[in-house]
């Protein structure tokens, strides 16, 4: 018998008790209580009204108690040459698959569990993600076993790759990837959070990331969700941007049966710049939901956002992008664009740009378009000998490529380009 919504949630709450100490234990206890009070969101909540979670409720997800042994060749296709790498398999850090030999001076990339005594971790961890409002964040905070700790002072010359691998397990499993990033003043880094699956197992990946950028720090934050087709993925990322910092996020959602990514960026120092690029590319019966919020809280901030959804077959993509310009955030300059491509008559895209401005002295632009493949472009390509399918795939790829090209790691841009083409079955370019 399929479990109900309540049974599914209770099963998650049972979880696995993770040993922890001191401050973390206090947070965990608080989180579990919050989670129990919060329960799953429902479509009656404004933030969830487009997002149907019922597929998730069909399963009881069990904690992971034993770990698959993987070799580097098992994950070879996901590796980024030259990158600093932490690998987590089903939530557990695997030192043998990781590579932190290229760490430069002032750069720390380590398993969170090894750093729980660190004052800097204690000072930052758990303060940014909203565990009091969000049941998923609360669940993660209570049950995560390990995660990534990234601290950059100075410049990280190589990209930092956090690879979260989910393996196929006998029962549906709950995974809790976790990440904390602290960028010191004037530091620079490129971070890649990468969620992948091996095999077609059923799992629920509930990820939380917290990022702090101090004055004039610059972070290129890439997030790739390429989970397996039976997976559920709910991710939350909270970012705080200090004075003069530049935060650039490029978030891609390709995989999972149902996914949701919430990205909340707060501009908390003058002249911080926020660039958000997003792409959801889905087919079949996939659901991909992206919720972003940018809070301009201090003067002369800048934010530029471009989000694209591509939905084929009966897929459903959702984008909600809120930009809040608070009182006192004078001279804010903000532009948001939502561009969407429907590849089938049964596909569905909901896009909801929202501007809330409590201030006169601002420049805010936003726009949204939903369209189909351009008929003239399609005819043009066919008139050059391409089959209709190949021409469609090429145009779809081109629409997606604009976002993927913003990733500052050429080998990843290339491998993701190939991934997209593989997903469009039958194509060869």
């Amino acid at each position, binding site marked *: 018998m399929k479990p109900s919504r309540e049974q599914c949630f209770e099963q998650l709450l049972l979880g696995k008790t993770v040993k922890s100490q001191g401050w973390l234990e206090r947070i965990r206890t608080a989180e579990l209580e919050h989670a129990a009070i919060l329960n799953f969101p429902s479509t009656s909540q404004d933030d969830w009204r487009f997002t149907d979670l019922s597929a998730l409720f069909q399963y009881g997800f069990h904690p992971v108690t034993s770990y698959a042994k993987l070799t580097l060749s098992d994950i070879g296709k996901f590796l980024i040459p030259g990158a600093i790498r932490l690998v987590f398999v089903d939530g557990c850090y695997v030192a043998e698959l990781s590579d932190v030999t290229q760490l430069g001076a002032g750069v720390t990339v380590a398993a969170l569990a090894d750093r729980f005594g660190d004052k800097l971790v204690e000072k930052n961890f758990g303060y940014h993600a909203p565990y009091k409002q969000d049941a998923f964040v609360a669940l993660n905070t209570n049950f995560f076993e390990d995660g990534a700790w990234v601290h950059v002072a100075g410049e990280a010359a190589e990209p930092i790759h956090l690879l979260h691998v989910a393996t196929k397990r006998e029962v549906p499993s709950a995974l809790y990837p976790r990440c904390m990033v602290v960028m010191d003043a004037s530091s620079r880094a490129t971070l890649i959070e990468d969620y992948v699956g091996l095999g077609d197992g059923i799992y629920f990946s509930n990820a939380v990331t917290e990022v702090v950028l101090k004055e004039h720090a610059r972070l290129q934050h890439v997030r790739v969700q390429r989970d397996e087709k039976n997976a559920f993925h709910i991710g939350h990322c909270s970012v705080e941007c200090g004075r003069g910092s530049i935060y650039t996020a490029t978030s891609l959602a390709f995989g999972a049966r149902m996914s949701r990514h919430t990205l909340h960026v707060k501009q908390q120092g003058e002249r911080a710049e926020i660039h958000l690029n997003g792409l959801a590319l889905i087919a079949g019966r996939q659901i991909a939901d992206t919720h972003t919020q940018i809070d301009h809280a201090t003067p002369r901030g800048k934010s530029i956002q471009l989000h694209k959804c591509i939905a084929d077959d009966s897929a459903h993509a959702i984008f909600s992008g809120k930009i809040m310009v608070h009182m006192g955030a004078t001279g804010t300059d903000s532009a948001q664009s939502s561009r969407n491509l429907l590849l089938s008559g049964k596909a569905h895209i909901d896009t909801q740009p929202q501007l809330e401005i409590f201030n006169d002295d601002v420049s805010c632009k936003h726009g949204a378009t939903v369209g189909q493949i*351009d*008929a*003239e*472009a399609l*005819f*043009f*390509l*066919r*008139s*050059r*000998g*391409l*089959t*209709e399918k*190949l*021409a469609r795939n*090429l*145009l779809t*790829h*081109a*629409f*997606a*490529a*604009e976002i993927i090209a913003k990733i500052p790691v050429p080998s990843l841009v290339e491998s993701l380009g190939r991934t997209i083409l593989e997903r469009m079955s039958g194509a060869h*370019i």
Partner: protein
Amino acid sequence: MINKGSKVLLEVKNLKAEVAGVEILKGVDLTVRAGEVHAIMGINGSGKSTFSKVLAGHPDYTVTGGTAAFEGKELFALEPGERARAGLFLAFQYPVEIPGVSNSAFLRLAYNTLQTERGLEELDPLEFEDLVQEKIKIVEMDASFLSRSVNEGFSGGEKKRNEILQMAVLEPKLAILDETDSGLDIDALRIVAHGVNSLLSKDNALVMVTHYQRLLNYIVPDYVHVMDGGRIVRTGGKELALELEARGYDWLRAAA
């Protein structure tokens, strides 16, 4: 070059076609043999651009009567990609911009699709690079246009040159140029015409759709057809174009 004994590439008989329920072509007949250069002239709305699009298979147009055979095969039974792979090429009046697709990747994809159709080896990017570097000389195009997105941000003249570059790479049996001269300044016109001339042989053929005679100074036609009201109302030699230039179209319309 007229050679009555050469192979018939295209034979159109009593072609009728409509767009959005309005009949535009009302019975067009045209025979094109290998080695020939044809010009189709006419005023705006005469149906000449429609004719070229119908032959290439534009989905907005519906064929309602008549036949067209391409090397003996029923053209209208083929979808646009199959027509192209059979050796038909249309140079667009308004070439389409395709952001995100590099010109060289697109050209290689189209080229390799044709190679596969012809049972020949595909070229890898390096081999294709050598080929395309030769071809861009034909249209005097800067190599930087190859790495840019297809037609994106190209001037009108650059887009038309890019069309001829595609023709040079794909080597069609029958090329149809739809108002390729429109929007070209005299230097660009000369370059484009020179490029097209260098691609002509006894085995292929060209149909130019144009409003003006000036293109015909550079690409000399064997036949000039005048279209009016969805039909070819007069066919002559290259001197007919000069007569049209001197007298306009009205005298033919009256005669028709």
